[in-house]
């Protein structure tokens, strides 16, 4: 074997091949090699996370700006000290409760961000879109048949409403009977189940498509690595 051919890519490819085989061994059941590989993967990923965070946040947002432009980081400098306090208190179980205010700050900011995005980014546009399903002008812009456009709108509207009805879990108390939602909501919910199943079927196809592509990529890599050595020239 020509050692010069042992390029980093080749070695890397060989390592990747070994790791791929080890992971695919799970087809035969759980084994030590699969566990070894999965733990190796978690360690490498955690190491990358720690380094990227250090580089991108601490160095790029604090150290480098402070060095190059000392006054530019005054506004965010307290956040770094708060971050250090958060790190120290949450790493130690005894001091954990002292980091709760900062966790509250994070949770409050995330909640507000999520609320704003849900309201302005999903609810309003999606409801507006449901109302605009019967916009005949849009049909012309889409070069669609008007009947097709109206039928499409009706189906989407019915599907949206029935799907929302399926996720309605409120019940009305009834004497001497089990608590159940109103009958008309139950009927809409059953229709919504059909739309949901169709959606899940499409999702299933998409997940398989992604997994198949990953399998193809892995097999292609193995083929590229070993092909020259296994296939006749």
């Amino acid at each position: 074997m020509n050692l010069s051919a042992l390029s980093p890519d080749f070695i890397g490819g060989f390592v990747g091949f070994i790791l791929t085989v080890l992971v695919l061994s799970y087809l035969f059941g759980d084994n030590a090699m699969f566990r070894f590989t999965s733990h190796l993967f978690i360690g490498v990923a955690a190491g990358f996370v720690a380094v990227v965070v250090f580089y991108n946040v601490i160095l790029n947002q604090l150290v480098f700006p402070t060095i190059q432009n000392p006054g530019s980081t005054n506004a965010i400098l307290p956040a770094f000290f708060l971050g250090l306090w958060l790190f120290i208190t949450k790493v130690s179980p005894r001091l954990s409760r002292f980091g709760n205010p900062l966790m509250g700050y994070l949770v409050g900011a995330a909640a507000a961000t999520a609320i704003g995005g849900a309201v302005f980014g999903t609810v309003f546009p999606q409801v507006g879109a449901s109302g605009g399903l019967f916009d005949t002008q849009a049909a012309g812009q889409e070069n669609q048949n008007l009947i097709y456009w109206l039928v499409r709108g009706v189906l989407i509207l019915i599907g949206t409403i029935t799907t929302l009805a399926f996720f309605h879990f409120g019940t009305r108390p009834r004497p001497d009977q089990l608590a159940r939602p109103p009958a008309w909501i139950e009927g809409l919910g059953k229709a919504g189940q059909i739309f949901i199943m169709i959606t899940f079927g499409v999702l299933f196809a998409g997940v398989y498509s992604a997994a198949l592509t990953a399998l193809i990529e892995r097999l292609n890599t193995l083929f590229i690595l070993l092909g020259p050595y296994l296939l006749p020239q």
Partner: protein
Amino acid sequence: MADIRCPMCGKNNPAGTEVCKYCQARIKPLVVNPLDGDGGSGQPGKSSQPNNTPDHESSLPDWLRDLRQRDDEPAPDPTEKMPEWMQDEPQVPGFSSDGDAPDWLSRIRKQEDAPEESEAESDFSAPEKDDSQDFLAAEEKPGQDLPDWLSQLGSSEPESKPEAAWDQPDEEPAPAPAEEGDQPDWLQRIRSRQKEETPPDAFLFSSEDEEPSAQAAEATEAGETPDWLSSFQTPEPAPAEKADSLPDWLNQQAGPSPFSEPVNEGEEEVPDWLSPKAESGPFSQPVSESEEGVPDWLSKFGGQEAGAAAFAAPEETDETKPAFGEEENLPDWLTRLDSSATEGPRSGSVPALILDEEDLSETPEPDKSSIETPDLSSVPDWLSQVPADEAASGAAAGDSEAGLAPAELPSWLEAMRPVESAAPLVGSPEDTSGPAEKAGPLAGLRGVLPAEPEFVNLRKPQVYSIKLQVSEAQQAHIALLDSLLETEAAAKPVQGKPALMSQQLLRLGIAVVLILAVLTALFLNQQQLPLPANPPPEVQNVSTLINSLAENAPVLVAFDYEPGLSGELDATSSAVIQHLTARNAYLTLVSTSPNGPLLAERLITHILPQQGLTVTNYTNLGFISGGPTGLLALAENPKKVLPYSLNGVMVWEGLPLSGVQSVADFAMVMVITENPETARAWIEQVQPFLQEKNTPMVMVVSAQAEPMVRPYYETSPRQISGMVAGLPGAAAYEKVTGRTGITRHYWDAYGAGILVAVVIILAGSLINFVLAGFAHPKPAEAEGTL
């Protein structure tokens, strides 16, 4: 003054307090113990419970009724000397320890005053009272003209057994002796003789008895001694003999209850007037005595029903029976007592005592059904000193004699019987109301408050079992639970299973088929499958938008996918990146995932060069932490969030990013992600900022995220301008752009994989349908979600 300690609760009370202020018990008992010398006002044998109800009064004989109505005579001097045997004995109820003359003596005294002839014909009770009063009145005055027989009593030996004539139930103690000054002389003489000679036996009259005995002795000394009093003159036998000769109720007072012992010996020891063979006795031979000058009242004793409460026939005393055997000489009441004794001994052998007048008046009306608990405060000291065990033994002895029929006493006599004598017979509820008091003035009584505080009774605490009391039903449940737990904990025998199960075989077969199909397609690389002929509109829009980009336009590209889906998204995004590179767009790479910058570097430096594409017009700004919050910060001020590139280069100062102040200043925003949530976050947080400048946002998503991202495309106005989804989308994009890339290489293998999956799933479902059709029909299942 020193505080007085309450005998009941044990708490200190101020001196002079009669009633305890804590428990309301009498500190100073009503019963006067002659030994204490406190001059108690209590009458021996006196019951605190008044017994003066009309019904009870009507049933009493007249003489007894008179006795009850008589005023309390001064209590005898408690310091008066009594024989020792009298001092320790509880006083017989009905007889005062203070020396009050017995009722019958009082009556004798009175009757002495009255003409004897007029009283001789009268009822026994009335003349008895008068006679007794007369008699006593005569006796109380030593200087008076006493009958000779009484005066002879003083010279004779005090008969040690006048009590023998008084057949009392065993456990009934003798009352406290009355004061000497109040007792007839003959009685006093009797008592004095007894004190001098022997340890006194239980004598009906305690100190009081001494005086009658002394008086009797004096009487005999003074004059002709009646036969019935002649017994007083006989020398007193030895104490032991005397003890044996005492009636049972007197014998109970000292050690072996004298009352329980039959008077076996000593007919000669029994006072003549008490002995059954005695020719004379105070009640047995009234005629002879009358012949001798005995007062008429004494002669009437034999024919009268007597207040035999004080002189009840002993149970098993044969000698005592003959004491009343001469019926013609015995008073009727004594005769009846004798008959009742012959009928059978009463259980308990409790002597029935004649209560004093005051006692009778205070005793409550007897309850036929039960005997009331006597007034504990009025129990004479000699009575309270009787050990409880003696009382119990007396009761036991009485119980042992259950074979003997109890004597039938008249109701009025029964009522006057002390509670101790009657309680065992009647079996009152109070008998079982609690343990008998063992100490103090209330010894022998039941249902009383403890004299001592409970905490004084230092005794070993009761041992309680700490073992859990488990019933049988609970034990059965426990056994069942144990058996269930044992089955859970017990290692189930591992059945030998084959190396490969059917499920594993199926899975292996599917993997083998799929891998073979893909490898074959990759190996053949014939690219037989054509690319999609009609690209979807969302894909065409992306192409259109990129085509409309200006030269060196900054394009924000977000690599927000995981390395696991790098195979699909590298193939999908490479087509778009190639198009962007071809348009010489300035790629600004960001990511909200820590792996994103690395994936971006991998695509740019590793994947695209393999396709012959070199990308240099880009900058990798790195990682944005915080998720949606970071996106919001990026949208508001990207320079603040990412001031430097991943390499530490300040890229915002030079072109083309120098003109970018907000995210809307980018020519286009492209998000590459496999997660619908990440796509939604970009749309919700960043897209609103793009609207001000109509900056398009396009999505390069995985096939698994397409259904959840499409609704954002189907809005009006569209939130995302274009979308390339999965390998089919990439193939369509390559179809649109006319470029070949990784997708083309994967397309045949992808088709093979899809075909294998469809075939296997379809075949398996058909087989399951057929098998389900041949299987046992099941009830209709409720429809549910997957």
